[in-house]
């Protein structure tokens, strides 16, 4: 078995002095693995994945991403961010830049690619998410589903080893969820490491190698999707599943 690409070892984090949001997190993610993180609101799922690219800092424990330990060292953080793409619930596209400019920004300024090359790469990614014809529009001129696909393409332009998804379909109208999930499923088939916070259980069943259930800052249960959905081991996960699948 290969070395884990992401490794949490007894990671703890607090918001302020009192709110213990991550409690003794131990987690190993293998390269190419596809992980879905679920759990009730406030359980620490988003915080967990935001620690991976240091949008949040953990206060205790060791967190290693692709051989680099995440510490205060800015250089290490920069290194990690080049390998980790992220897609947000609110898309976070840059509204003052066109779709194409959103995609070429980082390759040009961080990756130092010439403009022409960056644009070629961007168009490739836009085709991959089937939205190339919108390249010269501004993000707010697109629908939510289209914006989220642009956001995915933007993250892919960095050619990341790991993709983090923080509830990528939660802000979408129901009829747009599928177009985003389809893109994500295609990505999953191409073997990139994915850590995805989502409540889309259909997606979890279809692509996840492992489902992680969190509650109150802890990893309560982790298992392959089949066993997790059919035979949840913990009362908390059983309770959660009955709530989201029950209707």
């Amino acid at each position, binding site marked *: 078995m290969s070395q884990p690409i992401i490794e949490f070892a007894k990671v703890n984090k607090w918001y302020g002095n009192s709110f213990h949001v991550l409690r003794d997190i131990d987690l190993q993610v293998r390269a190419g693995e596809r992980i879905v993180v679920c759990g009730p609101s406030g359980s620490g799922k988003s915080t967990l994945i935001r620690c991976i690219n240091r949008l949040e800092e953990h206060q205790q424990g060791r967190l290693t991403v692709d051989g680099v330990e995440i510490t205060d060292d800015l250089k290490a953080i*920069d290194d990690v961010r080049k390998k980790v793409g*992220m897609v947000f619930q609110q898309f*976070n596209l*840059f*509204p003052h830049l066109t779709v194409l400019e959103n995609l070429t920004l980082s390759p040009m*300024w961080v990756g130092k690619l010439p403009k022409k090359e960056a644009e070629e790469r961007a168009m490739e990614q836009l085709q991959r998410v089937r939205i190339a014809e919108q390249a010269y529009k501004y993000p*707010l001129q697109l629908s939510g589903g289209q914006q989220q696909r642009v956001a995915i393409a933007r993250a892919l332009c960095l050619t990341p080893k790991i993709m983090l998804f923080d509830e990528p379909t939660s802000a979408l109208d129901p009829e747009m969820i599928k177009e985003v999930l389809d893109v994500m499923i295609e990505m999953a088939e191409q073997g990139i490491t994915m850590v995805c916070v989502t409540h889309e259980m259909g997606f979890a069943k279809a692509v996840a190698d492992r489902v992680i259930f969190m509650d109150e800052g802890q990893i309560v249960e982790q298992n392959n999707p089949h066993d997790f959905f059919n035979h949840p081991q913990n009362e908390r996960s059983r309770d959660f599943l009955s709530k989201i699948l029950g209707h």
Partner: protein
Amino acid sequence: MSTFTAIAPRPAPNATTGPLAWCKANLFHDWKTTLGTVLIGVVLLSLLPRLFAWTLTDAVWNGGYEACHAGNGACWAVVREKFRFILMGRYPHEEHWRALVCTLMLLALIVASCTRACWRPWLAGLWVGVLVAYLALMRGGFAGLRYVETDLWSGLPLTILLASLSMAMAFPIAVGIALGRRSGMPAIRSLCTVYVELIRGVPLISVLFMASFMFPLLMPQGFNIDVLIRVLAGITLFAAAYMAEVIRGGLQAIPKGQVEAAATLGLSYWQTQRMIVLPQALAMVVPGIMNNFISTFKDTSLVAIVSLYELTGAMGMAMNSDANWRPFRIEGYLFIALIYFVFCFSMSRYSQWIEAQVNKSRQR
């Protein structure tokens, strides 16, 4: 099961068509609005003819002060008589062409800086070139040009010089201060906060006074900075403090997600500010920034306190120095009011154009 039948879109109903219907709806809707309309109409009708007569028909356009004293209307002759003094102030009379050339050059530079086609790297070089030429020609003292001390620079050229340079310098300082007040580094943050609070806590007059009279006392003997530069620095620092707060308002309005997205893309702090945060924040506060610019333009009139005579000061001097024309200062003030209005209104129109430009990305 019923089938879906599309209803074709229809134009919105238009309640008010034509000026008559508009008047009926807005001016004579019921007895109260009718009464209001009639009252306001009567007042306007009784005032307007007098205003019209004073300004135009009874006005004295030509001739000397005797004609003005004899007449009932406005004395526009005072403007004709004094306009060079009002516009140029103490700048030597036979050298006025130099101030005129310099000011036109500076205005052309400002217009160029406001034009999209000129937003190129060479614009910075142009600024340096124009400013050097400006200083050389205004001061003189070479090639047979008479030397003119800076405290003789006055009138409209001084207004434009002070306003444009202080705005151009205050803007980048303000951006820096605004970013500093949101910095993660406590020392920088408190420094910027103290700066803003100190400067905003005192009137511009006292800043100018200190710049002009206190500053030289603190300097070693024989070491002096030109009064114009000191005053310019005073106005700049003052305007920057206000503008910084306007810009900070824009920075606050940028969602945190924008910065996070930039971070995940690997952009550095400065790249994020320059390419993501500032373009959006500044676009949001264009009206506020223009507010600052316009008040800075008019605030330059306060330099009279330190014996520099820009447009307002020169106008006062022109009137006070001549007892024969002194009664007609109202006409003089109306004249410079018109000049101020032309400049401020152009700035206001320009800011509306900028707003339209930056809002393009938000149109569907």
